């Protein structure tokens, strides 16, 4: 077991290096100068040349990469050109805000999706199955940012029940989970974000439940005289591992892929930080954010993998 863990860690290191190369080069594929955008419109090209030298952007690319990598490994992700704050600080704050959304969205998706999938799988082939599976497919096929816009119009503008945008009346630094005035800002983004995971988890659960039901031990349980409800409980328990695995992966996915929802709700999370960095060509923030998000994703996958193999030996790959 230890050897397995060590092997996986060792294997993750070249992946992380590859990820850092991709992150770094992404920014430089772009046409145009990285610094142009953070300067005011009236600044002349000569001014920019001076500032460029001050930030070290005039060195050759491989040198810049090594310098950047050296700093990153020690935890120094550089400074944002736009706000002059350490990138590490920006990214960790933004990630924490997105994690807050994901922390609510994933359990919501899990419970809703699991119940839906369980119902569908238990009545496989009947109309209940069709209806529920249809609902799940709707969840997966909906452009979730469109749903977000519609929800804002209905709940915030027309009926003024919930706020339209932002993260709390005092911003993220003073966000208090125990106050309704803060929590109400969470509701619409979490629901929007949960749409797709609900669909995925419902389908996964349905597949898992249907598969488990077809196994021999279920027949045996019935032959033993257990009630249908008790049999169902056994089936659901056996279907859990697969679904939990998918749920874990969804958490990692939401942390990195929330940009569209965060744009609609102006939620100051990692996706929003990324989209701003792209528009502003804020190079250090761009590199730092992509790197941090992908590493978090890798780490989440790794943890899910690790947790899975003791539970379900079939999943472990050679």
């Amino acid at each position: 077991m230890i050897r397995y863990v060590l092997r996986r860690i060792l294997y993750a290191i070249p992946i992380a290096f590859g990820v850092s190369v991709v992150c770094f080069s992404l920014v430089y594929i772009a046409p145009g100068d990285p610094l142009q955008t953070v300067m005011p419109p009236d600044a002349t090209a000569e001014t920019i040349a001076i500032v460029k030298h001050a930030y070290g952007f005039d060195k050759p690319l491989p040198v810049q990469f090594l310098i950047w990598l050296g700093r990153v490994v020690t935890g120094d992700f550089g400074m944002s050109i736009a706000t002059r704050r350490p990138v590490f600080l920006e990214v960790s704050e933004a990630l924490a805000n997105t994690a807050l959304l994901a922390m609510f969205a994933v359990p919501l998706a899990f419970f809703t999706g699991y119940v839906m999938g369980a119902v569908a799988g238990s009545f496989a082939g009947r109309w209940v199955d069709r209806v529920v599976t249809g609902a799940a497919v709707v969840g997966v096929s909906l452009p979730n940012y469109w749903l977000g816009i519609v929800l804002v119009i209905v709940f915030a503008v027309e009926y003024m029940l919930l706020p339209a945008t932002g993260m709390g009346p005092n911003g993220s630094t003073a966000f208090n989970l125990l106050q309704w005035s803060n929590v109400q800002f969470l509701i619409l983004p979490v629901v929007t974000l949960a749409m797709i995971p609900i669909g995925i988890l419902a389908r996964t659960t349905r597949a898992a439940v249907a598969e488990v039901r077809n196994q021999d031990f279920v027949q045996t349980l019935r032959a033993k005289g257990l009630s249908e409800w008790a049999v169902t409980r056994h089936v659901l328990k056996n279907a859990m591992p697969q679904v939990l695995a998918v749920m874990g992966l969804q958490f990692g996915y939401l942390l990195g892929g929330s940009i569209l929802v965060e744009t609609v709700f102006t939620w100051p999370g990692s996706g929003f930080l990324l989209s701003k960095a792209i528009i502003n060509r804020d190079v250090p923030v761009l590199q730092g954010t992509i790197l941090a998000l992908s590493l978090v994703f890798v780490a989440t996958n790794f943890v899910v993998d690790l947790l899975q193999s003791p539970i379900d030996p079939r999943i472990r790959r050679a």
Partner: protein
Amino acid sequence: MTDYSSVIPAKARIQGDRAPAAAPCSSQGQALDPRFRGGDDVKERHTKPVYDEQALPATRVRGYWQSVFYRLQHDPVTLFFAAIVVLIVLAAVCAPLIAPFDPYKESIVGRLKPFGWRGHPLGTDELGRDMLSRLIYGGRVSLLMGVVPVLVASLIGGMLGVVGGFLGGRANTAIMRTMDVFYAFPSVLLAVAIAGAMGGGMTNGMLALTLVFVPPMCRVAETATTQIRALGFIEAARASGARTTTIIRYHVLGNVLGPVFIYASSLVSVSILLASGLSFLGLGVRPPVPDWGLMLSTLRQSIYVVPFVCALPGFAIFITSICCNLVSDGLRAAMDVRM
């Protein structure tokens, strides 16, 4: 958006289907597998004495692809949605013939008009252009950005996966680890980062999406190829003296095509959603080209004037996406493949 590494499709039993469980074989592969020979075998059985253990009732055993088509034929839901998809594609292809107005013609007087105003069945947008025509033409771009990346990614990823699975060993590890680096990014993040870095635009968007889909396609192809190797067909064929190209053609490709095709079909709806997301963020096609995601973004400001008109592009994306999803599900059930 779907997370590919964990998709485990249902090995669901279709009602009324009595055909034997399909093994992942191509029709050419069937020639070598005695269980599936039709034709001659059946004739032989008819002439054997009744007490012979091979005297089964005279059922005509279907080939693999024939069973697929049989199942599809008897699945009205999938057929219905497939028809819708065909309709959408036809509408996009025949756009110049069926669009009532020029999608680029503006009218300052006729801005943001509701359904049915002066012959515009679905109203007009923020520049007075006909919504129906723009939706139809927009379908071209959206479908293109949905299908082309998936096609190209299937080709590239499929090839890489087959090569890797076939060669095995170090080469396989090298290819798969490179793919894993890109797997480390959530798909939305990677698509946005690449498209954003390259400055947006339709080709960059398609490039970004292709790069996003190559790793999962590669993994699917590699898994399927490795399974074939494990089943021993390849060794047997080698032992009987077949050339590498023949092996690849008859054994590997035939069996890989199934899973790859299924997976690709499920990716189409994801690609459409991702592409519209990119356009929504301003990283896809540039105005004034009609595209559903872009239309959604530009109409967002006018949502107080004609809310239903502004919601239309979202509907278009949704309907196309859901139909592709359901057709893909139906195909998977018909082909009954476990990945």
